[in-house]
Structures are given as structure tokens and as C-alpha cells.
């Protein structure tokens, strides 16, 4: 067992290492990559040619004149020390931009994904229990309709109605302009107020899919023999619902939850742009539009690391939730 956890942990580091290498490849080797652009940009700004290389080295932790392996080593060493270079467009260390933007993204994605999961499971279970009833039909219809609405459409409509027309909620930003960025009641209230619309639009569309998945799983479990046996044994409905049905129906959705989290982290690129919500996705697009490669790769790496950790947690806890699946070791090869 211990062996498995060690191996799995090693894999996390290996994955992060590989992805960091990939960002190096993207930065360094892609045609028309940042070097040509950056060099042209700096020269246009009137930076003397002799200084350009030094500036690039400073911004990106890479010395352009060094051999490739040396550049790679420098880059990885800097990364290992938590140095992601300096943002070109914002003139700030990338790390400090990420530190101030990541919490907003994590907050919105986490809250909305948990909401999606909880509401979806609840609705799906009820639908499965009353399969074929009017409630089931109504909510299946609603779920299907919700699934066909992309979140950015909800976002644009919500922005139009609640922010521009009714003026109930702010149109942009993470907190109000006059609010000081420190932990205080007005700050928290303002932050909540600003997060309502992003969370709402990111939650609504995704509930339908989750509910339908849970409904399908539950119905499948309800058809199983052991549920019939449990019924014959005269176990209480509540015990059957929680111990037998819910547990087995939620299980396939559990890894799905962490994957969902990952996909949705990426989706914030669009969401945050619509609400001008200054999280990771917002800075990714800002960086992209400004050819700010250090910042772009920094946001990319942070989102990546979050995802790797999510899957890692899923793997470690999976065997705890599903006794049928033994973690790793006894996993015989066919």
C-alpha cells in the first residue's frame, strides 16, 4: 500500500516536471515564439541592442545566447525556486500577479463546482427515485435545456439583465473600487457581491449535466440485485438510499468531479473576460494580447499544478470510497 502512495506521489512530481518542460518548449521552440517578438518589441521601444539580451534574460530567466540545455537548466532551476520571471506588460514579478489573482479564480471555480455537484446529485437522485413521474419528466426537460446553454451565454444575459438593466449587481471587477484590499466586512461583502454573477452563470448551465448523470447512475444501481436483496431483507428506505444506492451512484461521478474542476479552471478564461474578473484566466488573455509570454506561461503553469493535485487527490481517495477498487498493488495484470 505504502509503495503505491510513494509511486503515485512521485508521478505528481514527474507530471509537473514534464509540464514545466513543455512550457519551456512552448516558450523557446515554437515558431514565431516570444523571442523574435520580444526582441522586436524591445528594439522598437528604443532599448539598445546590447541590452536587449540582458533584458530578455532578466524577464524570462533564460539567456538567449547560452546553449539550449543551459537555457533549459536555467529555466527549470528558476522555476524550482518559484521564480517565474517578470511580466513584460505589467512590470511586476509574475509570481506576485499570480498570487493576487489565483485566489479569485479558485474561489469562483470551487464554489460553483461544489454547487453544481451538490445540486446535481440531489436533483438526479430524486429524479431516479421517482422515475417516470411528472417531476422526473419536468426536471429532465429542464436539465436538457440547461445543458444546451453555454455558460458564456448565461453570463452575457445575466450581465445584461442584472447588472446593466436592473443595476442590482456590479458589472465588473472582483471588489468595489473604493474598498481596501484587506480582510474586513466591507471587503468580504463587496467580494461576494462581485462574485454572484460569475458563480451564478458558471453554475446554472452545468447543473443539468450533473443531474442527468446522477439520474442515470442511480437508475442503473436501482436495477441491481443487491438493492432488491436489501429490499427483501426489509432494510429501511433510508439505509438503502444512502448505503446502497447513493454510494454506488456517486462513485463514478467522484473522479468526474475533480476532472470537472480541471476543465472548469480552463473555462474561466472566457468567464473572467466577460465579467472583467481579474483572476488567472483574465491575466492569461491579457498576457496573450500583450505578447507577455512570462505571464502567459506562469498562469498556464499554475492552472496546471492545480489540476495535477486534483487528480492526485482523486486517485488517493478513490479506493477509500470504493472498496471494489483496490489501490494499485493487488491490481493484477491480464
Amino acid at each position: 500500500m505504502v509503495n503505491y502512495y510513494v509511486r503515485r506521489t512521485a508521478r505528481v512530481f514527474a507530471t509537473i516536471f514534464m509540464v514545466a518542460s513543455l512550457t519551456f518548449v512552448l516558450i523557446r521552440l515554437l515558431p514565431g515564439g516570444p523571442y523574435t517578438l520580444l526582441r522586436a518589441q524591445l528594439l522598437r521601444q528604443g532599448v539598445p541592442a546590447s541590452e536587449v539580451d540582458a533584458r530578455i534574460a532578466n524577464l524570462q530567466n533564460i539567456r538567449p545566447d547560452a546553449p539550449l540545455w543551459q537555457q533549459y537548466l536555467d529555466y527549470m532551476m528558476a522555476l524550482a525556486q518559484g521564480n517565474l520571471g517578470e511580466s513584460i506588460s505589467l512590470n511586476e514579478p509574475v509570481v506576485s500577479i499570480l498570487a493576487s489573482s489565483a485566489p479569485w479564480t479558485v474561489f469562483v471555480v470551487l464554489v460553483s463546482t461544489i454547487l453544481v455537484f451538490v445540486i446535481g446529485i440531489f436533483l438526479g437522485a430524486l429524479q431516479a427515485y421517482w422515475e417516470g413521474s411528472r417531476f422526473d419528466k419536468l426536471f429532465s426537460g429542464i436539465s436538457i435545456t440547461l445543458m444546451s446553454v453555454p455558460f458564456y451565454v448565461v453570463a452575457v444575459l445575466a450581465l445584461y439583465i442584472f447588472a446593466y438593466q436592473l443595476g442590482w449587481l456590479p458589472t465588473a471587477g472582483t471588489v468595489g473600487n473604493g474598498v481596501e484590499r484587506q480582510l474586513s466586512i466591507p471587503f468580504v461583502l463587496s467580494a461576494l457581491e462581485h462574485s454572484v454573477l460569475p458563480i451564478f452563470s458558471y453554475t446554472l448551465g452545468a447543473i443539468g449535466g450533473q443531474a442527468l448523470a446522477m439520474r442515470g447512475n442511480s437508475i442503473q444501481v436501482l436495477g441491481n440485485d443487491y438493492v432488491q436483496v436489501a429490499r427483501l431483507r426489509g432494510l429501511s428506505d433510508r439505509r438503502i438510499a444512502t448505503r446502497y444506492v447513493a454510494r454506488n451512484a456517486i462513485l463514478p461521478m467522484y473522479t468526474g468531479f475533480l476532472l470537472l474542476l480541471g476543465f472548469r479552471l480552463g473555462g474561466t478564461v472566457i468567464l473572467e473576460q466577460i465579467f472583467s474578473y481579474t483572476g488567472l484566466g483574465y491575466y492569461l488573455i491579457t498576457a496573450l494580447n500583450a505578447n507577455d509570454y512570462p505571464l502567459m506561461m506562469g498562469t498556464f503553469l499554475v492552472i496546471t499544478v492545480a489540476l495535477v493535485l486534483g487528480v492526485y487527490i482523486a486517485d488517493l481517495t478513490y479506493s477509500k470510497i470504493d472498496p471494489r477498487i483496490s489501490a494499485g498493488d493487488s491490481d493484477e495484470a491480464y
Partner: protein
Amino acid sequence: MKPTETNGVDWRSESTSAPDVTTRERLREVYDERIHTPLLVAWADWRTRLGFLILGGYLLIALVAVLGLWREPSTSQAPRYLMLFENMNYPLGTTASGTDLAALIIHSTPDILLMITAGAVWATAVAVVIGTVAGYKGGRVDRALMSFSDLVMAIPGLPLVIILAVTLNPQNPILLGIVINISYWAGLGRSLRSQVLTIRENDYVEASRTMGVNTPQIIMKDIIPNLMPYVTVNFVFAARYVMFASVGLYFLGVLPYSTQNWGVTLNLAYSGGALFSWSAAHWLLAPMVAIMGLSLGLILLSQGLDRVFNPRVRTRMSGTSSSTANDNDDDRVTEVL
């Protein structure tokens, strides 16, 4: 242990001579079993019917565009800001630059259909291969494949697509579909693997294994059929993801504007201030309705198909322990009516 001719006993005589069927008969059987009957069952479900009708509608629209039955969109081809149905020559109205909105929507359709099909086929095909092989084989193969999908999955989808789109600048809709779904298979493959892990513990799989059926056949005959509901549903999800992502990325303005797309229309409407005045609301709504309609069609189809492939979804939670086979037949009859 191989039976040879010298030992006088033809071990295989039974299996070679017994089924005296021609290829045509076998094909017919396969057609009946795999295509005809499932389609009948699928058609009996209103969701499939509606889904097929909607998708058929989009195909017709695509055909209209390909055959050139509707004018190409161009600026100043009509009065500016015509409302919905104000002028029946331009039923969906026009944009701020006097472009026929109906033409924009219609001429976007073929490329979008190509794009989502390409992306979905790519994602599900790779996922099924990786997921089933990893889950069934286990051991080192599993570890290698899962490490690989972990790596791919560790790269956030949309941001990667954005970076790839900016550097590769894909113009071909098929290529664009694959780029958008380039890492989509990883998550799907992983969940398929976890399903295979439970399926492979089933008695019939073990039976096949003890009988010495080879791995590809077990995967094809025993495992993949069990995954079909999940795969078909996820095929549709993958298609939907391509559409949502592409429209969203066009909306952000990060994909090359070369192809006409509803997202481009949406972007122009959004940046053109359609959000602030009712007179331009149709400009924003038309592409939204087009997106949601196609998405609705796809989802209805997946829901209906789920019933075809997944007989267990049909079993009801009836208190009686009557045989489920009878229940199914009753179901089918009532649903045809």
C-alpha cells in the same frame, strides 16, 4: 498443444462446419441486430426523434449554404439594424454594418458541423482505445498509459487550445476541431478506465479469460458494449464541447477570424454594443439561438441513444421482483404508441 493433422482428430471440425451461413446472411444478421433494431428502439423515444429532426434541420441549413441557395453575407447588403421579421427578405434582421444575419448564421453552419464531428470522433476514438486497454490490461501498460493521460490531462484544455491556436493558426475546420479537443480524450479515457476496472471483474469477462479468448476480442465483445452508453453520451458531450469552446474562443477573439462562425457574430454583436440597446438585441440572440438549438439536438440524441445502448436504464424500481425482460417489452410497446 496445437491440434495437428497427424493425430487424426480434427478438433476444429465442429466450429468450422456447423454454422453454415453465407456472408450475406451474416451481414444481414449484423445489420438487423446492430443497426435496424437499435434504430427502431431509438426512434420510439421522442428525444431521439426530436434530436434527429433538429440535427437534420442543421444539416439542411448546411446544405443550403453549400449549394449557395442563400446569399453570402457581406457588409452593406441591406439596410442597417433591421429588426426580426421586419423585412421578409432578411428574416433575421441585419447587423450594424447592414449584413444579413440569416446569411451569417447559415454560412457558419457547414464549418461548425465539420468541426464538431472531427473533434468528437478524435476525442472518443482515442479515449476508448486508451481507456479500455489501460483498464483491462492493468499493470505496467495501465501505468504507462495513465501516466501519459495524466500528463495530457494536466494541461488545462482551453488555455492550451488558445496558445496552440495563436501559434498554429489553424484555418481548416477539421483541424480546428481536433485542436480544440486535442486533450479532451484524456479525461474521458480515464473515466472509461475506471469503468473498465469494475467491468473486468464481472463473471463473464472472467469466463472469457479462462476460456482463453484473446485480449482484443474480450475488449471488443465483453467490455466495449458495456461502455457504449457512456461512449455515445460522451461523443455528444465532446461534440458539444467543441462547439461551446470554439464559439467561446471566437467570442474572445483568440481564434483566427478566417472561418465564419456564430462566435464571430456574437463577438461583433457584443463589442458592437448590442448588449445596451433593444434595437440590436436580435443580433446577439440569433447566434445564441443557433448555438443552443444545435446543442439541444445533440443532447436529446444522446439521451435517446442512452436508452438504446443501456438496457439497465430501462429497469424500473418496481417493488415486485418480476423479470425485467417483460418490463422492457411492455415499455417498448407503450413507447411506440
